[in-house]
């Protein structure tokens, strides 16, 4: 019954982190998630830690996250996610929003 902790690592773009030490966005509502971004110089690497009650979607997480890192061109980041049954569409959307908020974009 315990929560699942998943960890992934991707090659991102060195120096393409966020301006502040950390940035948070999203709410762990039903079907939703929160994202905590932390700046960390690690040769461009992006480390993602997911905490979720859902089992059996490790491969889906991996694909969605890999796609996000590649498309967004981010790097030198630790991304921590508390998930509560977010769909892949919501995961992608929240990650984009988190990055754009961290970079001082529009708060929506």
């Amino acid at each position, binding site marked *: 019954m315990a929560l699942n902790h998943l960890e992934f690592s991707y090659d991102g773009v060195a120096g393409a982190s966020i301006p502040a030490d950390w940035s948070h966005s999203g709410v762990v509502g039903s079907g939703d998630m929160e994202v905590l971004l932390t700046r960390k110089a690690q040769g461009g690497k992006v480390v993602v830690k997911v905490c979720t009650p859902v089992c059996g979607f490790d491969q889906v997480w991996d694909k969605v996250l890999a796609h996000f890192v590649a498309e967004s061109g981010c790097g030198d980041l630790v991304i921590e996610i508390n998930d509560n049954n977010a769909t*892949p*569409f919501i995961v992608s959307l929240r990650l984009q929003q988190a990055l754009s908020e961290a970079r001082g974009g529009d708060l929506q």
Partner: protein
Amino acid sequence: MQRRQWDTLHQDRMQRLAAAEQAVGPGKIVAARDTVKLLEAVIQPGDKVNLEGCNQKQADFLAEKLCRVDPKKVYGLHFVQSSITLDSHIRLFEKGIAEKIDFSYSGAKAGALAEGVRSGKIKLGDIHTYLELFGRYFIDLIPRVALVAAYAADREGNLYTGANTEDTPVIVEAAKFKQGIVIAQVNQIVEHLPRVDIPADWVDFVVESPRPFYLEPLFTRDPALITESQILRAMMAIKGIYAEYGVQTVNHGIGFDTAAIELLLPTYGESLGLKGKICSSFALNPHPTLIPAIESGWVENICCFGGELGMEEYVAARPDVFWIGPDGSPRSNRTYAQVAGHYAVDMFVGGTLQIDADGNSSTATADRIAGFGGAPNMGCDPRGRRHASDAWLKCGAETGSTAETLGETPRGRRLVVQLQETFREKMKPGFVDRLDAWELRDAAGLALPPVMIYGDDVTHIVTEVGIAYLHKCRDLEERRAAIRAVAGYTEIGMRADPRQTKDLRRRGIVKMPADLEIDPAKAKRSLLAAQTIRDLVAWSGGLYHPPGKFKNW
């Protein structure tokens, strides 16, 4: 040669009427307290009975009284009716009063129905579409007794069914003209009806119900619950399908996806300059979410299957758009609207629960017998259609398999559009290798898996990933590839070959948001013309009166 007696049905009917007179006295108007006696007098074991109820109005008082008849006198009934959706419907089977059901839609009782079939208490005839079932009322499922609901009756027994006329005319006609018995429950008996929807000589008995018949606001969607994912699919559908084909005549399904489309017409649709070019005529219930588009001048005509609770005053105040009686109040007629939806609209757009790798879709699950309603009659290509329109011709011309099946003869085609989220809540995949409908077939002993819309009828699938223009595919293998390309991170989607997807995009068989010049980040709730039920009331100028269930003030 022995002379055949030609009026046995009539004789039978006269015997039943005589029994009724003996039980409750003479006259058409029967006191509510005598209803059980009346039913016991006119219904005989094994009768085919139509207990009116569709996805909107219900003859619920008569249903409850029928539960109280003596199961030793009245038993083994065969129900032939649109819906099985009330507690009392299920109780009739538990008590043995009813034995078999032929129906179309079950909604909230889908689970109880499946359980009843499994336990052997309910014998399942067939699951139909509305039109199909109505057709059988005149061939091999002729009701002996019809129990219907109306707003009001006069002393002669004329009925006023008003905005919720729905199935009543077809049921009464099927029963009455084959010498059956018609009993109506009415909310009130009045001196003068606003208009006559069913003439008195088609009605045998009228019971004034102590409370109004139950009406389900099934087509009310609260805009507050529309998600960004639905808005994105709606934007893609409007730009990639409605605008692409210039579709003027449309039927929408019941879900939030189409509610999103309705609420985007006056905003996003307007910004694309589509007003007047799409969506001018609908076969559709009076969806409250269509109010902003109507008020903004998008819609010329709406032909309704039924009435929607709270919309009566609004509908009556827009007689150019809706169908209104000489008395000024709305009417609906499910049969005619279903015929319109089948033959006279160019496009069906709806959501579903599961789509398989071949494009078949179903809302059935192994433990729920939900039925079809009217969707399959609209979510198909009407092969009998002969009149042409631009959208129909374009879709037909694009059809990739015509050369293989028909040769050179040109033919049009209806657009059948499925809006689908790749994953629903709790990560339930929207695309599956095998529909749950197969399991239901085995569990319920059906001849076929209950497929709502067959893959070869679907022309477009819209997901948040993209649109698959399935009808353009040349064969099944290509269709499967197009489905995989828009199935996202589901197991089916993950089998997509990126090179093949690229080729399908190049050929316009798959279009992603970027191909349609749509930025998914722009899919915001602020795009909706109304974001709450209260906004809809404001759009209606106070003419829409939402039921308490939807009204948070």
